[in-house]
């Protein structure tokens, strides 16, 4: 087993990985950019290194600086988390060349599945259905025009290195094609440093269902069932649940076995997710392999009881998976809600800024994977994800009620978040009846709007609170200075004290 692992990420996922490391008796090394010097993830690490300026390209995407930090720290392995360099094959390769174990698939498998075009070809060979579309990358717009005409509109343009909906555009006619390809390329370059995009047929009203797979270096492979991720805004997931209401036992088994086949065909080791689209006639199509720990991995952990990040580390260390397929069960129901710094009432526009007050929910079946604290200034440079709220309960109905309650008890004040919006999703029948697809957010826009009905009551409460606070002064006014002000220790910094 490794003695020390460098975590090349920030926020909640850096903390999540740290927990798994420390429970295995492994030291966790954290990294941070300039703007992140007071970030929450650093409070959990055994050691921390500055890796560059605030822009992602200078720090969390800066391979040289990260490798230097790993070497300086004496780490034997690097965990990339999700996003940033997680699916970057050249990063995995540089790790390998520097004698560092990349916790994920090897660079060869990573470049295969990371290249969405090559992975489509591989998957097709083992008999898994794929969506009709482009098989070769072509930077020339004429290639796109021809292919779009061949598969028929609507089509979707996607970043080859992509994930999380970045660089993705739906195109309904030829007139929109060129602008969409260019916008996709621009976004892909900014998010992944590679502007390659490809095109495929767009399936209307699909459900997004993915299977979690683990494969060790000895060829043992298991799947840990599905996650339904159809609730998305701008092609980015906001709510995930497992089990999916769309699958019966037969389809679940078939998709799970297909997912394992995909992972084997790609020669892929470690934790991977095989994403499928399920159309209205319940036919499934391979979408892509996510070669990383997923944002939504906790719901799988909740229903199977298996710590996926620990499994990632064990597999990377060369150990065998000790769990057989028949030992893995889906018990109860789990839901995850992603808490974003954004304004749902204003096109989900990002809302970085200072968190004045924070209160996290608690109680049975509640898990909060968070990267924030009260008093922290959320920087504008990175993904708007703040934390993840995960609930478990015996069945779907009670899990939804639990999530709704927990969201109401989750208080973030100072910046706008999607907390209220997520609660409205939980409370709408369109969600609770389980019969939804990836356009849920767009199709229920008016129903998911914040209600103005009780505004007079809210104004009355505000006026009362203002009147009380004016009388009591500091009790409910302003940031709780005692809680959030810096201490002389923080001002001075332990490095200076220790004379480093």
């Amino acid at each position, binding site marked *: 087993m490794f003695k020390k692992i460098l975590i090349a990420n920030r926020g909640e996922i850096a903390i999540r990985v740290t927990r798994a490391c420390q429970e295995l008796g492994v030291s966790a090394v954290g990294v941070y950019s300039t703007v992140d010097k007071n970030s929450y993830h650093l409070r959990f690490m055994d050691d921390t290194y500055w890796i560059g300026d605030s822009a992602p390209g200078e720090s969390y995407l800066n391979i040289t600086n990260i490798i230097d930090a790993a070497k300086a720290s004496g780490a034997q392995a690097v965990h990339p988390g999700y996003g940033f360099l997680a699916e970057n094959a050249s990063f995995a390769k540089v790790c390998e060349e520097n004698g560092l174990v990349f916790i994920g698939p090897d660079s060869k498998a990573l470049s295969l599945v990371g290249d969405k075009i090559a992975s489509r070809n591989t998957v097709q060979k083992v008999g898994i259905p794929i969506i009709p579309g482009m098989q070769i990358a072509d930077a020339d717009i004429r290639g796109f025009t021809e292919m779009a005409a061949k598969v028929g509109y609507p089509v979707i343009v996607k970043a080859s290195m992509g994930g999380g909906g970045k660089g993705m555009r739906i195109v309904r006619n030829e007139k929109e094609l060129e602008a969409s390809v260019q916008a996709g390329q621009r976004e892909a370059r900014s998010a992944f440093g590679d502007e390659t995009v490809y095109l495929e047929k767009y399936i209307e009203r699909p459900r997004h269902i993915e299977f979690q797979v683990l494969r060790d270096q000895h060829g043992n492979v298991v799947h840990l069932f599905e996650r339904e991720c159809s609730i998305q805004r701008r092609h980015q997931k906001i709510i995930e649940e497992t089990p999916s209401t769309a699958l019966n036992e037969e389809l679940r088994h078939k998709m799970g076995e297909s997912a394992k086949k995909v992972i084997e065909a790609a020669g892929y080791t470690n934790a991977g997710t095989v994403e499928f689209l399920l159309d209205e006639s319940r036919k499934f199509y391979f979408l892509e392999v996510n070669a990383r720990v997923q944002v939504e991995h906790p719901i799988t952990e909740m229903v199977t009881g298996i710590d996926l990040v620990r499994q990632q580390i064990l597999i990377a260390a060369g150990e065998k998976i000790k769990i057989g397929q028949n030992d893995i069960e889906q018990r109860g129901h789990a839901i995850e809600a992603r808490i974003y710094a954004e304004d749902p009432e204003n096109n989900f*526009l990002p809302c*970085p800024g200072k968190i004045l007050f924070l209160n996290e929910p608690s109680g049975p079946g509640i898990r909060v994977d968070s990267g924030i604290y009260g008093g922290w200034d959320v920087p504008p440079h990175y993904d*708007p994800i703040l934390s993840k709220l995960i609930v478990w309960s015996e069945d779907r109905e009670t899990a939804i009620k639990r999530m709704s309650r927990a969201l109401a008890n989750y208080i*973030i004040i100072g910046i706008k978040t999607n907390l209220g919006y997520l609660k409205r999703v939980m409370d709408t029948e369109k969600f609770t009846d389980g019969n939804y697809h990836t356009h849920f957010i767009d199709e229920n826009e008016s129903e998911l709007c914040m209600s103005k009905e009780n505004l007079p009551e*809210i104004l009355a409460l505000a006026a009362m609170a203002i009147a*009380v606070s004016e009388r009591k002064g500091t009790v409910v006014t302003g940031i709780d200075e005692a809680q959030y002000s810096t201490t002389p220790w923080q001002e001075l910094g332990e490095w200076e004290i220790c004379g480093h």
Partner: protein
Amino acid sequence: MQYQLSYLNKVYDVCVRQEKDEFIVTIGQKVFRLKDCAVQGHQVSCRIEDKPCHMYFVQDKDNYYLAVDGEYYVMQQASASKQGFKGAAASEANSIASPMPGLLVRMPVAVGTEVKAGDTLAIVEAMKMQNELRASRDGVVKKVNFKEGDQVDAFQAIVEIEPQRRQDDL
């Protein structure tokens, strides 16, 4: 106590008076009776029209923040002494500001550029999302306050436009 509370660019006149252990709040025709008020840190509990209610309340500078039943509200006091509030700059039609803080990634205009309503004046990126700021009317760029690569705050004027007078303008 008389307050003018502004919420989502609308101003509401609210009157609060205390009678023994009750707060009586009047908003237009509506009267609310709030009692059993308990304050613990930022958490405020009470009964409003006999219905139990728990909320969180924070004041920071001119802003009042409330979290009630999972929803979040930001209000300001728009009293005579505090005319206007944050966000006013952005509503001026002759200057373009970003609704969110971020990085100015593109500015395809310069002083003297003629623009039409709907033209992109600047692209601001925050949290990996690009937001295009467009001209709300025809005109000529009078002033640019930032350059590409600069960090801009929310509601800071980025580009100022000299509006083109139309014949039907009074």
